């Protein structure tokens, strides 16, 4: 009896400390954009940017925080089935937050270098892996147009194999679901909400135009950091 009490107190001790840590853990908030909503016109309209940032991204964050809170409660109660059930909402809403946070950094107005092809090691790596910068764009356009329903197309670097890859993910699955060693350099949102008001059903036109506002400087920085 005494032994049992000892054991439970021992296991309970660190557990409740862990619990408090989660309790005190941060919630997520909407990141600011480094440019105005209208700064990417004509490639992406101000209306799309505003809705996309203020409504869509905000909703992912709200629901992500809500799911994390529910998960916290479920863990506190030892409710395993609820904790497991929450995983899909966490993946979707957390993925939405992660993906959009990257996406905003992937974009830049033309006046601030948007669309300027990468130089340095990334530019060299693109030529080596895809033949040329134009071929990479053509490949990403094809893969992006081929995504069924909603999703993302990515240029990523495989940190272990030290090579560039093009990947697609469905819905809001973050890139990490395609491989733990993948680091996203450029992610393009091919959900209809990203282009519908301007391009209607013509996703290829959206993909063609978005390259005019892609921030290759940011992509190069990540590449040099992940693959020095």
């Amino acid at each position, binding site marked *: 009896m005494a032994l049992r009490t000892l054991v439970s107190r021992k296991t309970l001790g660190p557990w409740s400390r862990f619990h408090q840590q989660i309790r005190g853990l941060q919630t997520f908030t909407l990141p600011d954009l480094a440019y105005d909503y209208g700064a990417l016109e004509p490639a992406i309209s101000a209306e799309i940017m505003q*809705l996309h940032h203020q409504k*869509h991204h905000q909703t992912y964050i709200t629901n992500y925080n809500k799911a994390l809170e529910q998960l916290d409660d479920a863990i506190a109660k030892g409710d395993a089935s609820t904790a497991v059930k929450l995983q899909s909402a966490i993946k979707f809403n957390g993925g939405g937050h992660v993906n959009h946070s990257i996406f905003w950094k992937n974009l830049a107005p033309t006046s601030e270098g948007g669309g300027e092809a990468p130089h340095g090691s990334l530019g060299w790596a693109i030529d080596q892996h895809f033949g040329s910068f134009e071929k990479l764009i053509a490949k990403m356009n094809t893969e992006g147009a081929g995504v069924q*329903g909603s999703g993302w197309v990515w240029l990523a670097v495989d940190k272990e194999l030290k090579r560039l890859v093009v990947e697609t993910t*469905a819905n*809001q699955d973050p890139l990490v679901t395609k491989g733990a060693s993948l680091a996203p350099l450029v992610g393009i949102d091919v959900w*209809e*909400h990203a282009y*519908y008001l301007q391009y*209607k*059903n013509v996703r290829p036109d959206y993909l063609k135009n978005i390259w005019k506002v892609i921030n290759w400087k940011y992509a190069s920085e990540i590449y040099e950091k992940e693959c020095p």
Partner: protein
Amino acid sequence: MSWSCSNYLCLSSSSSSSSSLISSHELTRVNSCNLSCEYKEQRRKDPINIVAYNGLKPPSYKLDKPQKRKNHALKKPNNISAYYSLKPPSYKFDALEPYMSKRTLEVHWGEHHRAYVDTLNKYLSKNDVLYGYTMDELLKVTYNNGNPLPEFNVAAQVWNHDFFWESMQPGGGNLPILGLMEQIEKDFGSFANFRQDFIESAMSLFGSGWVWLVLKRNEKRLAIATTTNAVTPLVWDDIPLLSLDMWEHAYYRDYKNDRVKYANVFMDHLVSWNAVLGRMARAQAFVNLGEPKIPVA
């Protein structure tokens, strides 16, 4: 030109030369160059009102020389394919205002749905193994037991959209009537429960997809189903009775990101319980929903 008239256009073109109408609803076998001419003429008259276009280049000869056209057809007797047509909704584009705007229908039907039909026809012209199926059969074959062929997505989206247009009507909403209401109360407890389940299912979709009311063949009961992207419950042998398009293109122009409002408006003002009742009546030819009736000797 009215919708029924443009339907006729599609069928009438099949009566000339060697082609003929071959099977159920939309499936017609048409001579591609006759259709191209008619298409060209039709497009000139009314650019939005086109029933079927085979995706081939219109011929270069002039329309006022029918003799030449005939010769052309005779020279190329093999230039015939099975095509599906773009079927217009049974109501006018502004008939669902203000709940679903004219502009939404113009783009959703006139561009999205049309693009699915065009792409499907393009695929079929290259893959004659899939020639001659009815739409329902084509879906099951191309679904390929869960390893869909490239044709599946477009074929299913053609079917889904046709079904969706017919799931709505001007002045829709209200409550289901007659046996349908009884069955909903039996299987969901109450209409309010069903309504809540349906809308919650719509909100639970993580991405593009559809929400359905289906009749389960084996369980002999109604159920709500969700499918992602183009998948339709037909491939699981359920009988669809009602659908709601939850792709963003279906509601974005009217409701932006407010999916909850869209789903509620659909239930309150758009859903056609008449259509659902009719579908259920047909489904009962395959599924006995009542107690077994044993004739008394």
